[in-house]
C-alpha cells in the first residue's frame, strides 16, 4: 500500500522533490510542444517582419537617436525581447484550457506543491521563448547586425529570455486565474501587450520618451529584459542599468509573481 510521499525528510530533500516535480511539468509541456511545433514557426513570422520591414525602413530615415549603433542593431534586441513577451503573455490560455477540460483538477489533487506546479508551467513557457530567441538571433546575424557571438554573452541572453518568459507567462497565468474564461482573458491580453511594448525601450530609447511615460517605462519589466539583452547581444550599446540590476529586477519580479500565482492557481479548481 502507498506510503505518503512526505516523510519527515530534511529540508534539502523536500526541495529536491519539488524541483523534480517542477521538471516533470516542464518535460510534459515540452512533449506536448513537440507533437505540434507549427505554433513556434508561425510565431517567428512577426519578429521577422519587425526586423525586415520596420527595422529596414527606420534604418533609412535616421529619426531615432541610437548613438553609435545602427537602428537595426538597436532594434534587434528589442524585437527579440518583444517576441518573448508576445509568446508568454498568452500562456495563461493553457491554464484556461486545462480548466475547461478538467486536467487542472488532477494536477491540484497531486501532492506537488502549488509553487512547483506554477514554476513548472512558467519554465515551460520559457522553452517557447528560447525558440523565439534563437530564431531572432539567427535573423540578426543574417541581417548583418553583428550580434555578439561570445558564448558567455549568448548564455546571458538565454538566461534573460528564460527569466523574461517565466515572468510574463506567470503574469498571464495570474490573469487567467482571475478571469477564468477565454473571452475575457484574450481581451485583457490584447489590452496589455501594446502598452508593455511601447512603454519600454524595445523600439526607441527611454531618453526620447515624454517625461510622463518614463516612470511607466521604469516600472515595466520588459524594459529590464530589453536592457539586459541589448547589452549582451550588442556589447557596444550603452545600457540604462547595470546588468546586475536588470537580472535582479527580472528574477525578483518573477519570484513575486510565482508566489502570487501559487495562491491563485488552486482557485481554478473551485
Amino acid at each position, binding site marked *: *500500500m*502507498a506510503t*505518503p*510521499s*512526505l516523510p519527515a525528510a530534511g529540508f534539502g530533500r523536500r526541495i529536491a*522533490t519539488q524541483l*523534480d*516535480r517542477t521538471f*516533470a*511539468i516542464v*518535460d*510534459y509541456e515540452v*512533449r*506536448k510542444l513537440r*507533437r*505540434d511545433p507549427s505554433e513556434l514557426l508561425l510565431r517567428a513570422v512577426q519578429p521577422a517582419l519587425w526586423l525586415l520591414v520596420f527595422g529596414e525602413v527606420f534604418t533609412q530615415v535616421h529619426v531615432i537617436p541610437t548613438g553609435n549603433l545602427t537602428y537595426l542593431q538597436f532594434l534587434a534586441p528589442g524585437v527579440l525581447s518583444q517576441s518573448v513577451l508576445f509568446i508568454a503573455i498568452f500562456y495563461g490560455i493553457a491554464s484556461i484550457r486545462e480548466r*475547461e*477540460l*478538467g*486536467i487542472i*483538477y*488532477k*494536477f*491540484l*489533487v*497531486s*501532492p*506537488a*506543491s502549488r509553487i512547483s506546479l506554477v514554476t513548472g508551467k512558467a519554465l515551460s513557457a520559457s522553452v517557447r521563448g528560447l525558440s523565439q530567441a534563437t530564431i531572432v538571433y539567427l535573423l540578426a546575424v543574417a541581417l548583418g547586425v553583428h550580434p555578439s557571438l561570445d558564448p558567455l554573452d549568448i548564455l546571458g541572453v538565454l538566461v534573460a529570455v528564460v527569466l523574461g518568459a517565466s515572468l510574463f507567462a506567470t503574469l498571464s497565468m495570474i490573469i487567467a486565474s482571475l478571469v477564468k474564461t477565454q473571452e475575457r482573458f484574450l481581451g485583457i491580453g490584447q489590452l496589455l501587450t501594446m502598452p508593455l511594448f511601447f512603454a519600454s525601450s524595445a523600439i526607441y530609447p527611454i531618453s526620447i520618451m515624454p517625461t510622463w511615460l518614463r516612470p511607466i517605462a521604469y516600472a515595466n519589466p520588459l524594459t529590464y529584459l530589453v536592457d539586459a539583452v541589448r547589452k549582451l547581444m550588442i556589447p557596444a550599446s550603452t545600457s540604462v542599468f547595470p546588468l546586475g540590476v536588470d537580472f535582479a529586477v527580472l528574477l525578483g519580479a518573477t519570484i513575486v509573481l510565482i508566489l502570487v500565482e501559487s495562491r491563485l492557481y*488552486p482557485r481554478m*479548481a*473551485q
Partner: protein
Amino acid sequence: MSTLVAQSITRVFGRFTAVDHISFEVGEGEVFGILGPNGAGKTTTIKVLTTLLPLTSGTATVAGFDVVREPARVRGVIGYVPQLISADPLVTGYDNLRVFARLYQVPRAERDARIESALEFMGLSEFARTPVKYYSGGMIRRLEIAQALLHRPRILFLDEPTVGLDPVARDAVWGQIERLREEFRTSVVLTTHYMEEADRLCDRLAIMHRGRIVASGPPSSLKADMGTPGATLEDVFAHFAGEGLDTGVGFRETQRTRRTAIRLE
C-alpha cells in the same frame, strides 16, 4: 479503522449551502456511492474531501490525515477522477501517465513498470503510444482511472465515472472498479445518478438531496425499507429526491456536464 471519516462537513458558497452538515464513513475496500440529482452537492462533497475546496465547517480525515490541516498528506494517498475529462488529448496515454508518476514520486526504477501495469490493468496496453485524441470515450475514462491508480491510492474518488459512456464502455468501467476492490482492497467513493450503477457496484449508498444525506445504507436495505415488495432503487430515489428533479442547477454546470458527455461519445 475507516479509510474515510466525514463529520458534519459543510460547504457554503455565498448564500447557497451546497453541502449541509453531512457525515459518513467509508471502510477499507468498500465502494461507497453518493446518489443524487444534479445540483444535490455530490461534486462539492468530492471536492472538499479531495482538498480542492476548503471546508466551511466540519472535519474530515482520509487514511487518518485531516483534509484541512494535512492536505499534502491527504493528496499523497488519494486518487481522483473528475467528472470532466482529465487526460490531455495532445499527448499519448503513456505520456499522460508519466507526468503523474513523477508528480507522485514513483521511484524512477519502478516508473515504467508501474505505468505499464496500470495500463494493462485498464486494458490499454496496446494503445500506450497512441495520442489520447484518438481514444474512444470508454478508453479515455479507463486511462483516467489508470492515472489515478499509479501511486496505489488508499481511496479512489470517481465523480460520475460513466456519464456519457455507451453501455459496453460502462460495463467495462464497472468491471475494472470491481477488480480494483478485489485485488487491491482500494476504497472507492463514487457519485452517480445512474441507479443501475449504484445497485451493481456500491456496498453502501447515501442519497443526497439539496446538500443533505436523506437516506443511507446498503442498496438492499434501502429497497427493503420501502415496504413495497419488489421496490427498485428508482423507487427509493424517487421517494427521497423525487421532487428534486429541478433543483436549479445553473447554466454553467449543465453546459459542463453536457460537454463532457459529448466529448466522451
